[in-house]
């Protein structure tokens, strides 16, 4: 697929994201029937409208000017995360949210986009003139502080995503890493695992991992969610049970059907064909993002390339993990499925990412 210079919004991005959001509305209509947490489809549709607005604003922005503002944005995200960690609303034993009237902000989500913009900005600048040692240390420390603040909420998953985004972007940025350092780093991680298991994890985290390894052992305990998700997925078969007809979803055997396990609703009600369709949409969208990044490099816009590459990492680390979790391949972790899960923060951040990506593409072909 060759990118052709064309005026206006990238249709591949628009159509694939639009279809995902549309399918999500169908799935949420089904999932929300059994959920009585106050979540409603109306709220989701309103957020979709907001997300569209955010996307349009991001699309209109000059991404190079935004990159220059990224250090400030990063500091805002770091401050908000720290505030959430220390005095945010306590939910299910974690402090990840800031409540402003009826709005609930999750600084962890904002931090992701801030990290993408900042790292893109720093790497692009370092291509012209290497960063001073002091700046390297300062930004490294600031990034670590953010990751630690998020991890301490505790939200190890989001912290890991932040680290993953940064590491992936450094890789894209052409950072050459000596083999011995690679070995030393991975060796340290392996050695650290038992220590993390013993001291770094909370009880519920250990239970999650153990239950993942053997879900049937404790059908009503922690493994229950994984098992019920597998039942929902498996009973979908080739064609699915039909929209609104999935017993696992409608009779509330499936946990969190509107958030973490929305993909399981798809698998149950639309079967393997539905799964393949949505996987294909994600694949097309991901490939397109990488294409846009490559095209930006070719157009001598490394900032844009790194930004799009970073957004790709941000969206796909979460999406692939979420789907793998529904498929029972990885332990349960509360990552939303971008564009599909119920919940405003992730939706708005994802829309912003797509808006920026479309903006990068337009600038690289219009000029």
């Amino acid at each position, binding site marked *: 697929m060759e990118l052709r210079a064309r005026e206006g919004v990238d249709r591949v991005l628009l159509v694939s994201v639009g279809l995902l959001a549309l399918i999500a509305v169908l799935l949420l209509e089904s999932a929300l029937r059994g959920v009585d947490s106050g979540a409603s489809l109306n709220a989701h549709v309103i957020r979709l409208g907001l997300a569209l607005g955010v996307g349009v604003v991001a699309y209109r922005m000059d991404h190079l000017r935004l990159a220059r503002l990224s250090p400030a944005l990063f500091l805002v995200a770091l401050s908000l995360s720290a505030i959430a960690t220390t005095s945010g609303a306590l939910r299910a034993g974690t402090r990840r949210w800031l409540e402003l009237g009826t709005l609930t902000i999750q600084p962890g989500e904002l931090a992701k986009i801030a990290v993408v913009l900042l790292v893109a900005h720093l790497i692009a600048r370092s291509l012209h003139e290497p960063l001073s040692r002091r700046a390297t240390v300062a930004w490294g420390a600031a990034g670590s502080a953010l990751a630690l603040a998020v991890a301490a909420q505790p939200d190890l998953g989001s912290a890991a995503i932040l680290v993953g985004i940064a590491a992936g972007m450094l890789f*894209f940025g052409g950072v050459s890493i000596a083999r011995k350092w690679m070995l030393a780093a991975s060796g340290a991680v392996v050695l650290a695992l038992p220590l993390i298991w013993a001291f770094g994890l909370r009880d519920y985290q250990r239970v999650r991992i153990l239950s993942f390894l053997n879900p049937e052992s404790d059908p009503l305990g922690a493994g229950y969610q994984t098992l019920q998700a597998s039942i929902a997925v498996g*009973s979908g078969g080739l064609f699915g049970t039909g929209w609104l007809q999935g017993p696992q979803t409608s009779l509330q055997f499936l946990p969190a059907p509107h958030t973490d396990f929305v993909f399981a609703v798809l698998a149950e009600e639309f079967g393997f064909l539905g799964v393949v369709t949505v996987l294909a949409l994600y694949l097309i969208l991901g490939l397109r993002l990488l294409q846009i990044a490559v095209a930006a490099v070719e157009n001598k816009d490394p900032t844009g390339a790194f930004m799009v590459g970073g957004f790709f990492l941000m969206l796909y680390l979460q999406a692939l993990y979420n789907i793998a979790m529904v498929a029972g391949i990885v332990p349960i972790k509360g990552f939303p499925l971008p564009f599909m899960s119920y919940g405003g923060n992730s939706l708005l951040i994802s829309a912003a990412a797509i808006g920026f990506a479309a903006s990068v593409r337009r600038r690289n072909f219009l000029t």
Partner: protein
Amino acid sequence: MIHAEYLSRIRRRLTLARYPLWAFVILLAVRFWQLQIVRGEEFSSLARDNYLQTERHRAPRGLVVDRGGQVLARSEPSFTLLADEAGLRRLEDLGLLTVEEEDRAGLEARAARGPAVVRSGIPFAEAAFFEARRRELPGVRVEFVPARDYPLGQATAHLLGYVGEVTAAQLLLEEFVTAASGDLVGQDGIERVYNRTLVGSDGYLDRVVDSRQRVLASGGLRRTEPVRGDTLQLSVVSALQEAAHRAFGDERGAFVALDVRTGEVLGLGSFPAENPEEFRGDAGKFREMLADSATPLLNRAVQGRYPPGSSFKLVTAAAGLAEGVVDSETRYTCNGRARVAGRTFRCHRAQGHGPLTLREAISKSCNVFFYRLSEALDVDVIASYARAFGLGAPTGVDLRNESSGLVPTREWKRRVTGERWYASETASVSVGQGAVSVTPIQMARLAAAVASGGNLPTPRLVGTEPVGVVGGVMPEHFELIRDGMRDAVVSGTAWRARMPLREVAGKTGTAQVASADVVAADNEDRPYELRTHAWFVGFAPFDEPEIAVAVVVEHGGAGGAAAAPIGGEILRTFFEGSPETRVTGGGGADR
């Protein structure tokens, strides 16, 4: 300026990133293929297990009715409280478990396998109490189980048996293949033997429930109605059961009444008896009954083994006649005692009966006549006639655990004691003492054989079996014995079995349970368990016998005084349907 080399590296790495993306997407697609296509059926069935709940509607057991259609056993509406393991703990915590400590273990073991019966036959108010608290008492439920009700109570207790929750061991038996844990099955008597006829087929109702076990739908799903078990008609006559129950009063013992021509059981009872309704679901009461020295759970009519005493003289008489040792004219003289094989035996009449014929010996129950007769008969010969009358083997009645009784032979004694047979023992056997033991149902059958002139029917409660023949004994021999039995009722030991309008024939027996040498001579002075057993066997009407009866009163004293009145009561009830019709007056001795 940016190095072109840098840019190409960046470009290369961004291009490379699509390979892991492809790889992950394909990996996920393969995984979903495995879950949804390869293992789809397995997960669909797990999904059904989640939301489909099957409610079982227990079928009422079939009715048991008597010969005339009167109900003997029926299933009455009743509520049963069931609980699984968690439910049991909950009941315990709330102090609602009223089961005694010792029964706790058994209940817990049953509950571990599935919902078990905590209490049955609970009143409506209690059922409503638990039903209203389903939410607070998960694992506890009230089920509508038709409970068994026996209108005649103790009068039919052993005959009908009882029903109870199927045990873990019983579930392994071929007999109970169709039963499931928690089911009520026949545990004894007719309820057990004809369990398969009486159990119906349970109904099922599928329901859709959500994850919180709320019922969402039950229409349009599988629904089968319970079907009541078949009605079982027994050959017994209720009035006989009740008359016998009244006549026995507090005495222990048993009776069996048979249709002389077919062997159909007209009545069968064992006392003491306990109405199954009294111990339903009450393990404490049940244990008490098991430990009771009066053995209320033993069905004496088919399981009780008693020395027959003088009622066995019918067999000895038939043997003597058939072997040609005596005939209608043969007379032996009784002077109150006889010396056989160096041992002295006494007649019950100390001053003796004087010279008498076989017919007189039967009616007066003279022992000496039979001692003399036994001197000419080998014990193995007596045994072969006893067997011909069906003694020493189960009769084949459709009840469980029937005893064989014992007909001693030389071979038997050698096998059991290693000693040879003594002639004096033959004398004991000839009057139904020594090692001989019989069951009441065997004696009723013997009476039927004598009454019919040698036809040996198989006693049956349901249906009939082919009638056998007592070999070797001629019709005129039976006639002679029957005459003696008529005389016994008219003027002899069995006079208390008399009735108006129809002639009764009978033979009494007073069976020693201990040697007269070692116990007080007067029965009344002995400890209860050393007192004699009282027997009556008889039939009526004399000319065209219809009904044969055997009655044993355990440690009841003399047969004429204790057993003959009960036998008479049964016979009178059979013919007149009125237990109030009694003969008064007397004559003759009580032996």
